[in-house]
């Protein structure tokens, strides 16, 4: 019986540290950097300022990232067409953001197609993430 309690305690301790198996925003930034270096050998780092500008402008279509995720991504947003509530995008306001590879890839694919009619480059994704991570 005591052995079971020790085992349960250990499991609880491990599960209380999400980084034990979930990915983190910093992990994603590292992945984007590796890809960005491959895309353009002159890679000079990510910029939160550049990411913010990218996030808030339109890129040929009606919507910008901010159209749904708002000018202050620490707050909840809503879908520009349906008004469906969207949880905050900034990791500081929403710890679930940028923790699942499949989810991040899916939403960048869809939303960059909508906003830019193309995939976002790793540089752009990294800049945007740097901006989102800079928000408190």
């Amino acid at each position, binding site marked *: 019986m005591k052995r079971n309690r020790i085992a349960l305690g250990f499991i609880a301790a491990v599960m209380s540290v999400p980084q034990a198996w979930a990915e983190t925003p910093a992990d994603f930034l590292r992945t984007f950097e590796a890809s960005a270096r491959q895309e353009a050998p002159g890679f000079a780092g990510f910029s939160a300022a550049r990411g913010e500008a990218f996030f808030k402008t339109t890129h040929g279509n009606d919507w910008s990232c901010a159209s749904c995720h708002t000018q202050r991504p620490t707050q909840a947003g809503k*879908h520009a*067409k*349906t*008004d469906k509530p969207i949880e905050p995008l900034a990791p500081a306001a929403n710890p679930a953001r940028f923790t699942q590879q499949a989810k991040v890839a*899916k939403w960048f694919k*869809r*939303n960059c*197609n909508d906003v830019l009619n193309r995939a976002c480059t790793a540089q752009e994704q990294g800049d945007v993430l740097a901006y989102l991570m800079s928000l408190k």
Partner: protein
Amino acid sequence: MKTVLIAATLLAASAAAHADGQKTFTATNPTWQAECGSCHLAYPPQLLPARSWRALMTGLDKHFGSDASVDAKTAAEIGVFLEKNAGRDRDATAKPVLRITDTGWFRHEHDEVAASVWRNPKVKSAANCAACHTGAARGDFNEHSIRIPR
């Protein structure tokens, strides 16, 4: 007399149920809910016939102006769920109806709703079921749960 009244009430209730159709939609699937509910209400599969769902699922990258694409495995699971729980094909159109709001059933159900309601910013569009159907997220579209915003 009492028996007649009870019988008449039951008959009327069942007639109403058949005339109006089902108003609580209980079919659910977690993948469908997560994916199809991420930008709008996950519309109950019963609201369109199977051929409409098939058409929608093959064009997800151009989903009413947005890219709503999912990976093949997810699409297969959602597609099976939608077709299995789809409604009857009531509109005898050559091409499948893609918008629930274009179906004869929807128009009939909402034919008493004033045009001003659809224009109300709190409603915004007929696709925004939850604006009036307070139980929509639970699949409850019964009349008693309706609150039209002013």
